[in-house]
């Protein structure tokens, strides 16, 4: 339908201008809260749609015979947790047991493995890469590691009290401010482009 794109663009631009006006002028709070409520509801529906899409993809793989074991395990866990939570509620004993005994240990173990993997990657980086940026990365890493905590119980004051605080509280803050400023400007520009209809992420 040819009118779909102009209509959707007009709706998006109009609602965006209304929300912007609600932040600048009083009297639009109730309307703003209602629209935000719609957005929150749509976000929840989007999560359900994502869940349904995940189920569909893996069910299709099982039908086609692709990675049957992994897809079957994933679908079994998904359906089990979903049904039990619906049945017992989010505070149910079985639902909490599944969460605390399966999901949390798995994700925590992966993070622990990440520490080992990063250590080995650092070793190999020192072995194979000899350029300037690698040396800078390795040097900063050593300084932060030596200043984060006392090594084997022994504190190195030059790192813990001087070099590491300077890097983490001055240099890194400067970089973080620049990053946040860039993010803010990018967000502002994205909002303006959507308000004038230059960007139509809704597919109009």
């Amino acid at each position, binding site marked *: 339908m040819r009118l779909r794109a102009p209509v959707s663009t007009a709706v998006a631009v109009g609602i965006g201008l209304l929300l912007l006006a609600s932040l600048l002028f009083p009297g639009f709070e109730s309307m703003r*809260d209602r629209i935000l409520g719609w957005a929150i509801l749509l976000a929840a529906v989007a999560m359900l749609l994502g869940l349904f899409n995940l189920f569909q993809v893996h069910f299709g793989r099982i039908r086609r015979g692709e990675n049957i074991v992994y897809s079957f395990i994933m679908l079994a866990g998904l359906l089990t947790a979903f049904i039990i939570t619906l049945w017992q509620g989010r505070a149910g004993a079985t639902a909490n047991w599944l969460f605390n005994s399966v999901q949390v240990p798995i994700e925590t173990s992966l993070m622990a493995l990440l520490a080992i993997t990063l250590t*080995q990657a650092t070793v190999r980086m020192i072995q*194979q890469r000899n350029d300037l940026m690698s040396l800078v990365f390795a040097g900063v890493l050593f300084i932060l590691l030596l200043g984060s905590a006392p090594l084997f119980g022994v504190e190195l004051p030059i790192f813990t009290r001087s070099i590491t605080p300077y890097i983490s509280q001055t240099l890194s803050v400067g970089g973080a401010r620049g990053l946040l400023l860039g993010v803010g400007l990018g967000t502002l520009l994205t909002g303006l482009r959507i308000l004038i209809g230059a960007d139509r992420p809704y597919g109009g």
Partner: protein
Amino acid sequence: MSFHEPKDPEENLPDWLKELRRRQREAEQGAAEEAAPEESPAEEPAAAAEDNAEPQETPLPGAEPDWLMEIRRRHEKEAPPRPQPPTDPDEVEPDISDTQPNVPIQPGEIPGLEDDAFPEETAPIGWDAEPLIADPDEDDNDDEEASALPPPPAWLDDSGASEQPDAVDPFQSAEQDPLEAAAPSEEDDIEAWLTGDADTEEAPAVESAGGSEQPLPDWLAAEMDNADDAVLRSESSQRLFRDTGELPDWLMQGHTEERPHVRAFEDLDETSSIEPGELPSWLQALRPPDVEKIVRPTRSNALLPDQEVAGPLAGLSGILPAEPKVVRIGTPKAVSGRLQVSEGQQRHAATLNRLVAEEGRAAEDFSQQVAGPSRILNWVIAGALLLASAIPWLTGSQGAARPQLESLPAAVNVYDAIENLPVNAPVLVAFDVEPALYGEMQAPATEVLSHLLARNARLVFISTQPTGPGLVERLLADNLAIEPAIATGTYVNLGYLSGGMAALRAFAGDPQAATSPLPGQANNPWDATPLNAVETLDDFGLVLVISSETEQARAWIEQTADSLRNGLYMVASAQVAPLARPYLDSHPQSLRGLVSGLSGAAHYQIVRSGAQSNPGWDAFSYGLGAMVVAILLGGLYNRLIHIRPEASSEDADA
């Protein structure tokens, strides 16, 4: 042979061209009368060679300058008399060298020369050039044309066309033009032509029939008979054409004239005393065996480039073609795809092939030799980290130095804010923690929540992460179950707030509306004691965000900090601290206090109770030390492996 002959060539010619042709014919006749009887046989090849070299520059006899005529007269006086001068000028073969090649010579224009006198491979100048190798299919298709034309001579049918249809002796073709061979004064050429016609290699000792006492051989006698038959057939066909009126007069006139080459055949047995040409033995040895298959253009069939072959401009060269050459589609030459490769070329190709194969093979990378032990290195690093972290738990030592208070001033702000809370004040705790970072967040979150519970705060939990509510319950059950408020369940868990930043904005504006229960739900938390007095976010005594992710921390700060008079406090992971610190240092402060990571937990513990007992901190200290040592030793070990072969190669070079 097929050619399109106009009915009357003179009819469509312009007047200037007709005049030019008339002058040419007169000049040809005059030149034939003067030059043919006195021309020596030695001059004939030279003249032919000149014609082949520069045919277009041959002047007309009537247009010769005086100096050239003088030279010609001197030459004629010095030349020996011809053995058999022709008695009739009409029987003399016209010298093609004296004619202008650009002017087309029509059949019958040359006196005594008829179209049947041309064999297939010797088309007259100005006619359509046909391929020397006759196509049998084409011959079949041209039967009708052949019937309309005078029949070819018998000698061509019997010996030339039937015996050697596709092989012409190049030497014969170049030297023994039938036009020249038909001249009665050139016995050598006639003999060579005849011998060439009958395959001179197989019969090198052919002698002239009339020049010696030996009788003519059978094949030559048959040739002579055939020639006579051809003359008879030609005359009969001329009578037929004359009766039917199909041939024009000028052509009939040409046909009725006597043919000199026929007379040459007739005179062979009477006047010729030609000695057979003998090739020296060394020349015969050098002559390739299949030389007869090589086709070379003769003087008569070699048309000049870009010479018009039909129409009123036939014979003229240098004219614009009626159709471009690019549209003349012909059959491409059959090129043999078989490559003749010598032994040396094969050796070079093999060398190149070997070099290319070596290029495709990956060079031996010395780092690949250490890729095998990398799995061992993983196990060694994992074992070292686990062992180092377990040392404080195994030995019970807690002697690791604690962080300095002045190094983390933001944590003190959190402590002060909690200390200043009124009793039983509602405190909103946003618990946005991922399960992966639960271990890191557990320590600082426990310290701060424990402090809040000690101050009898009414905790209200909410999370923008789906896993947040479950982790809150887990944290309270594992670490704070001994606290009375937790044990009695006087806290509120609002659960998961879906919608991201939009939901946060809505929650900041109206917390009850954003988290209102479903209609019909029995327990409404906003009706209970800690929340019944809360209408806005600022009604909470303290808003504490416990976040392990940067995006969630930034969203809480940006969406809610402006609506909080008392500001926002945060417990974050170590990775969130660098990005949260700018909000901490801003004016006015969006973030009032920050406790980050294990060091922040240890620091807060020291600030709060002054306790020095912290097994987690010691484990962290030992594990960090093991990691630094592993990186140093591993890097040096691999570096030494890399240096070793280079040093050995340098030693070998030295």
